[in-house]
């Protein structure tokens, strides 16, 4: 859901123009030395009018001021666009409805209106609106969207298991929760204000680039000053105005004026993907990512696994197995449990209401046994992970013929669940992961970008290998724990990789904090959100690809415009130097064949001003990134912005010269 704001918006332009005019105040230019120098140059040129006034000189002076104005316009336009972007984001945010409990009465409020300390009610089927502590009740909660664990967890008031997370869902029973963290809009607001403040800070790369621009400016001051002295020494008269014009044309005004716009626009582009970056540096770092770590659940697969097949073992029939599984899942509110029931119903038309079971006792899933099931007189049915079931049965009782089936299921990327009835193995249920569509293309793109992808999963290695092979992921970490995730990141970083990670669970927080780029789902836990550098408001982990692309585009735009700006100087030399020194030489050294010395200087100054306007849309939109080998990307950009930067001003200046001569 891209929310794009059109550049061609009259009121926006008006506002930006006004801002740009305000910024002619030099005190507001202190953060942009190149433009401050341009301002100074314009001032010196204006002052020189007092000694020597002509229409030509007046025109040059005017265009110098226009240059300063255009430079400011680019920045103010980016700022205004960004503000509009944030506004539209604020409006479009949809929030969860919370049932707030006030004075023993329930009221429905948007989740974003909740304050810390409020008590909310959640019943089976409700989403928990914010992070909090359970103050009353006990319930099973599906946290798969956050932790990736498909099995529900028990949350109850007390000490150990009282903490619940916004975005998770209550499966059974009723909870009273005290909100401990703000959520939704207020959190978003805080993030947005963060954006506004980070937009004002230069990223490290930008600081370095500014240093280069300042150094060039200083060298050119020296160079232009020495021209003045040398010319006097050899008895050549050069006017102040042409020296200033030369200086302004040569210093990197183009990139100098667009630098800030590029940064702001980059952060805004990220916002268009509904991703909030906590600082500008994070976006650039994202562009540098060489390894991407992500959870299987949520990124590769939809949150929950579905039962796909019953595989019985002799002497039991498929129907017997299906029936046992059906009964065992009667009380299982998880998506898995319900998918088992649905599969059984689909094939054998079982009906939960018609089951004549009396004195049934449901055994809920517990983390220690990792099995669930049902007991009724004469029957004890359990289902659970294969190794958990194996632990419950005697060793030799687990049928050999099933092992092959289990391996097959794993190799297809599925998860086997074993079912036992009265300590007798009935067979296995094939739980299939639902793999999201369109992933193959995305991963092949990442591969082309040179980014190594690593899937982290609690699954066994066989299952993980099957999925990675299917989707085209470079590597996987099976049976991952928070510790191993952290170690993996540290190891990769030690090898010189920049690691991006997507996550949402609390147990991801250490790894997210360790990673160089952490993209956290906004549904994620508070800890995770604090640990990450960026927050995805749409909860789509595969969006990291867009983040990386945006980061690369930001850097590329900066590099491309720098190259273009520097390359432009070649033509400006060819235009201005003959105009200044032409009288020294016996023959014509004006290789560009410009109208006159004056029109050559004027055309160069006009070109120098107009090119800022022409490049502003590119600075705002960004140079688009295509996933190609770096060598090709470099070559292509070099051709466009390097070679283009040399050629464009020759054409531009020549054209302006023609117009200046014939129309003015």
């Amino acid at each position, binding site marked *: 859901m891209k929310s794009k704001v059109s550049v061609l918006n009259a009121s926006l332009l008006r506002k930006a123009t006004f801002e740009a005019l305000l910024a002619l105040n030099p005190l507001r230019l202190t953060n942009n030395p190149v433009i401050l120098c341009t301002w100074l140059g314009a001032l010196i040129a204006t002052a020189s009018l007092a000694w020597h006034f002509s229409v030509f000189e007046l025109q040059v002076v005017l265009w110098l001021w226009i240059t300063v104005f255009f430079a400011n316009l680019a920045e103010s336009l980016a700022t205004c666009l960004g503000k509009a972007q944030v506004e539209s984001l604020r409006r479009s945010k949809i929030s969860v409805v919370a049932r707030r409990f006030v004075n023993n009465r329930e009221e429905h409020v948007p989740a974003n209106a909740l304050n810390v300390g409020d008590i909310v009610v959640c019943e089976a089927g409700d989403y928990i609106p914010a992070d909090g502590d359970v103050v009353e009740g006990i319930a099973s909660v599906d946290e798969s969207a956050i932790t990736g664990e498909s099995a529900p967890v028990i949350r109850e008031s007390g000490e150990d298991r009282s903490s619940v997370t916004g975005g998770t869902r209550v499966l059974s029973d009723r909870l009273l929760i005290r909100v401990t963290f703000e959520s939704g809009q207020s959190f978003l607001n805080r993030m947005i204000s963060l954006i506004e403040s980070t937009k004002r800070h230069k990223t*490290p*790369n930008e600081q*370095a*680039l500014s*240093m*280069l621009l300042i150094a060039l400016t200083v*060298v*050119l001051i*020296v*160079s*232009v*000053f*020495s*021209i003045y*002295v*040398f*010319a006097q*020494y*050899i008895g050549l008269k050069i006017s102040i105005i042409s020296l200033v014009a030369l200086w302004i044309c*040569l210093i990197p005004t183009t990139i100098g004026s667009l630098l800030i716009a590029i940064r702001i626009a980059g952060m805004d582009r990220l916002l268009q993907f509904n991703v909030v970056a906590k600082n500008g540096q994070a976006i*650039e*770092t994202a*562009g*540098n990512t*060489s390894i991407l770590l992500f959870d299987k659940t949520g990124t590769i697969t939809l949150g929950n696994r579905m039962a796909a097949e019953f595989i019985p073992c002799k002497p039991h029939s498929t129907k017997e197995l299906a029936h046992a599984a059906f009964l065992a899942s009667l009380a299982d509110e998880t998506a898995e449990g319900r998918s088992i029931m649905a599969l059984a119903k689909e094939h054998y038309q079982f009906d939960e209401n018609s089951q004549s079971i009396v004195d049934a006792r449901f055994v809920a899933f517990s983390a220690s046994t990792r099995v669930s099931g049902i007991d009724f007189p004469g029957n004890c049915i359990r289902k659970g992970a294969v190794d958990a079931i194996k632990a419950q049965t005697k060793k030799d009782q687990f049928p050999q013929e099933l092992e092959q089936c289990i391996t097959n299921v794993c190799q297809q990327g599925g998860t086997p669940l074993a079912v036992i009835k009265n300590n007798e193995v009935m067979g296995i249920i094939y739980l299939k992961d639902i793999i999201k569509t369109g992933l193959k293309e995305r991963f092949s793109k990442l591969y082309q970008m*040179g980014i190594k992808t690593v899937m982290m999963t609690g699954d066994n290695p066989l299952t993980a290998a099957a999925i990675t092979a299917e989707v085209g992921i470079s590597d996987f970490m099976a049976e991952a724990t928070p510790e191993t995730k952290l170690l993996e990141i540290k190891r990769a970083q*030690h090898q*010189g*990789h*920049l690691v991006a990670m997507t996550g949402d669970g609390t147990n991801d927080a250490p790894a997210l904090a360790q990673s160089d780029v952490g993209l956290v789902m906004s549904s994620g836990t508070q800890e995770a959100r604090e640990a990450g550098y960026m927050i995805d408001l749409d909860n789509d982990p595969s969006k990291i690809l867009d983040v990386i692309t945006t*980061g*690369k*585009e930001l*850097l*590329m735009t*900066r*590099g*491309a415009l720098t*190259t273009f700006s*520097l*390359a432009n*100087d*070649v033509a400006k*030399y060819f235009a201005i*130097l003959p105009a200044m*020194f032409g009288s*020294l*030489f*016996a*023959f014509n*050294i004006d290789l560009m064949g410009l109208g006159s010395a004056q029109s050559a200087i004027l055309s160069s100054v006009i070109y120098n001003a107009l090119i800022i306007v022409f490049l502003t849309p590119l600075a705002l939109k960004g140079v688009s*990134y295509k996933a190609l080998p*770096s060598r090709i*990307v*470099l*070559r292509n*950009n*070099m051709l466009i*912005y*390097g070679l283009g930067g040399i050629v464009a001003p020759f054409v531009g200046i020549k054209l302006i010269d023609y117009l200046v001569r014939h129309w003015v």
Partner: protein
Amino acid sequence: MHLYDFYLGAGFIGLLATSSPLLGAYMHFSFNRSIGPAEARLYRISQLSTAPMSWKQYLKALLSIQLMSLIFMMAIFLLNSKAPISLDLAFNLATSFITNTAWQNIPGESHLSHFSQMIAITTQNFMAPAVGTAALLALTRGIFQTDSETIGNFWVDFFRMIVFILLPLSLLLALFLVSQGSIQNLASTLEISTLEGAKQILPMGPAASQTAIAALGGNGAGFFSQNLAHPFANPTGLTNWVLAFSVMLIPASLAHYYGIQIGSKKVGWVLFSVMLCFFIAFFAISFLGTQQLNSLEGQEIRFGNLGSLLIAHAATATANGTMNIAPESLSPLSSAVMMFQMMLGEIIFGGSGTGLYGLLLFSMLTVFIAGLMIGRDPEYLGKKIQSAELKWILFALMLPSCVTLLGSAYTCWVGSTDKTLFEILYNFASNVGTNGSALSGFKFDSSSDNIMFGVAMWVGRLSTLIPVLILAGILSSKKRIESIFEVSTPLFGLLLTFVILMINGLTFLPSLLLGPLNEYASLLEKLS
């Protein structure tokens, strides 16, 4: 140009391209070998630790050698028996040799005793290039090491460059020169009567030994004031070619050493090729100039047209500054190209170590500008180029240019009308670039000039040397990220070439137009 000249030139380049990788490999071996018992004993006797140093310690050691050299040489000059030398001249001379400039403000053979030549000048011809090379080795370590606080041991680098590389090569070259007619004896002068009975005094002395190391080490300090034009230094056409080759050999080999050291010979080849392309292109322009002029004024007949220009070019492309012709009689186009080579910061082969580290600084700057365009933070061989590094890169690349321009501007401002703008620019470029090539026998006589140019040489030398060592320290302590930006491709070579031309073109093109190109235009007018 005769076909014969073309073959000669091609052979020269072929020889350079085949021998420099071999010497580069030998350098890699020499600089990295473990300290043998004999070498270890030497360090023990000198009470020097061979432990790796931080950049500060390395710089301190390096400066201590420079300072000792300065005091020692000034003392020798002041005690020189042959002719009196004033304090400021002694400072200027000493500086000139220590900074690898070898701007000789006095004619050596008439003013300096053989003892002074040997013990002061010949020794600096060894030490100055060894200091430059040591700085390069430190920077190289900074690039290939990771997470290290040290950048190698200065004493070991310095010692090995002199003893393992410079000494054997100079011995061979000196003996070859003698075999061709270069003089090598300890006599003072020889008075003879000519065929027509006139008296002629022939200079004598240990010329070959000094000529050899002056060419190889890049100091370019001639035993005679006519330097390599003097028949006793450069007696035949063959020695001329061999000397030109020697001038370029070590800087060219260091590029290959660098490639081997960082584990990618291709990187070394790319750097070598960039230097070679510059050299050939500039030489071609210059040669065109001499063809237009077609004069033997200021040239020796035995060198031939190509050979005459070759040393002049090799010496200004490198930081050598030696000369076998009178550059003021060249077409201004040729001498403009020579001046521009010096203004580039002497990175076209350049001085021993100093040339390559200049080129590496430009490589990093290129990576910084172009690297962004692949959508990643700029990194050079896995070392990120950030503000901390860029600051010193820019400082080292731009300060000398500014000093050259401001110094020339100052001279013009003060107004010494007997010199053309071109001469002023050329001689400042030569001093700041620590080249030592002089135009029009440009001499300065006042003590203020001696001091000003002395300071210019120190600034030219230290304003790159110190940042390079700081950079080595910063880079060495950095961790390495996975390197994506390829610096071993022809495309990078092309980019590097453009960046070098852009940065220096921007700075110097107007001065070139006002000075030499202006004169060249007048010449074309005069010729036509």
